[in-house]
């Protein structure tokens, strides 16, 4: 039964990874920015929620605050870091180092304010009950699955129905085309960052409720997001979400054989296997160079 328990735990984690990774993939697809500070968005949202909780705010208010913080940080990164670098034609490395630097700053500022080590909120939602013999599930499990499915559906509908969503997809396909039609790619980038960042907030909140988060969790989130984007196939939202789910399950199922410290190794192995055998990812077009 431990296997089923781990599988379900993996699904819960995977649903949250899927959301985070879809946010990363959305930003990368639409703006071609490898937003490695996405992990910092996650950390920030999680700590804002914990702070609101500890201050005695209503949880719904805490959720809103976390989402607002995520969006604000995403937009700030776009306006203050990526856009200026883009203006002087900075390459991939320039963007990467700058975003990585900001992530380090966020991680350590949080460490100074909130202290190092794990922090979480004690919610009754995270209390597991025995639903079947030897199988424990907390309400958070269902919340995670429902939140992931709902947000992903909402995103899909937005991208296929709303004019701005359609424009975002067009931006992902061909930025020049969009400019030719007089759409502002600047505004759309901001939208992409806002949407992509807000997807990280629920994942951060639910993680804070269950396993807890620490100031360095952003590195792990960064790795998962990049790995899921690559495994899913660069440019595919669906692929990134599915790959996020896969990585969550892999990290959990590996515990059947190994201790917890190897969970991260499982993600790395999945990533490496894909780089070796299927570099275009699950849904990616062949990498044209």
């Amino acid at each position: 039964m431990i296997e089923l328990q781990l599988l379900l735990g993996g699904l819960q984690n995977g649903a949250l990874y899927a959301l985070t990774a879809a946010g990363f993939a959305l930003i990368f697809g639409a703006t071609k920015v490898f937003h490695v500070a996405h992990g910092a968005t996650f950390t920030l949202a999680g700590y804002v929620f914990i702070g609101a909780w500890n201050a005695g705010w209503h949880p719904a208010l805490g959720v809103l605050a976390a989402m607002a913080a995520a969006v604000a940080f995403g937009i700030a990164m776009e306006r203050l870091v990526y856009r200026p670098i883009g203006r002087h034609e900075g390459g991939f490395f320039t963007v990467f180092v700058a975003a990585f630097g900001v992530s380090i700053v966020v991680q350590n500022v949080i460490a100074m304010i909130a202290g190092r080590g794990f922090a979480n909120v004690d919610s009754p939602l995270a209390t597991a009950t025995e639903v079947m013999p030897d199988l424990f599930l907390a309400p958070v499990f269902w919340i995670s699955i429902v939140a992931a499915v709902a947000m992903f559906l909402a995103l899909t509908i937005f991208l296929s129905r709303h004019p701005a969503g359609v424009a975002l997809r067009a931006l992902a396909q061909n930025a020049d085309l969009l400019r030719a039609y007089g759409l502002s790619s600047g505004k759309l980038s901001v939208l992409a960052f806002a949407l992509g960042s807000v997807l990280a907030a629920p994942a951060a909140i639910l993680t804070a409720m269950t396993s807890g988060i620490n100031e360095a969790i952003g590195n792990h989130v960064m790795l998962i997001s990049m790995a899921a984007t690559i495994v899913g196939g660069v440019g595919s939202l669906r692929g990134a979400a599915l790959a996020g789910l896969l990585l969550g399950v892999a990290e959990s199922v590996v515990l059947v054989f190994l201790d917890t410290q190897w969970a991260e190794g499982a993600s790395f192995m999945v990533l490496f296997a894909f780089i070796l055998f299927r570099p275009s990812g699950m849904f990616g077009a062949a990498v044209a160079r």
Partner: protein
Amino acid sequence: MSIALTCQGLARSFGGVQAVKGVSLSLPAGQVTALVGPNGAGKTTVFNLITGNLRADAGQASLHGKPIMGLKPWQVARAGVARSFQDLRLFQHMTVRDNVLAATEPSGWFWQPGGAASRAARLARAEAAMEAAGIAGVADARAVDLAYAERKFLSMARILAAEANVWLLDEPASGLDLSSRTRFQDLLKAARAQGVAICLIEHNLDVVMALADRIAFLDRGEVLAEGEPQAIMRDPKLAAIYFGDRK
């Protein structure tokens, strides 16, 4: 007249769109073949399929009778196919001389084979190529600091120095003024006289008519016509496609 490079039935689609459908071409040694056609006809894709930058869905290509399909770009290059890119892809932060020298040094290992004698020979080749392309005067400038025409000629100098016998040139003369264009045409004529098989993607019909021995007209991934320049250009149907009066 020997055929340097041929390809048959090259095909490639991108996400359901047939960009190239069954293109066959022969490039005879010592001749200039112009590849013309409207934008999006699949001209550059054909180059990419030949050089291995893109994998073909179907088709064959051979160089002097040896199949080259499935080889990696660097292997095709070593077999004797040199190409230029529409966006040039110069080594921006290297000097002009280093750009051209790099074309004479195929090995990716720590050193080149052949020792000092070979090194001197390579340097001489590079100097000759720069001289021929008319950029010897800016040999120590960095590629990024060059003027537009000089960049174009640097791209040509790299190809000259590579000493290949098949050249695939992607819009090498676009944006050149008249005197530069004449210089460029002389460069190509000299190479043709030495037996190089040249394939040229070009939109400027003056350049095409001045240089081409043959024309292949490409539209929507297919070769619509192939033959003498005069005959192709007189065909009203092709002219309609080319000048955008397609019904």
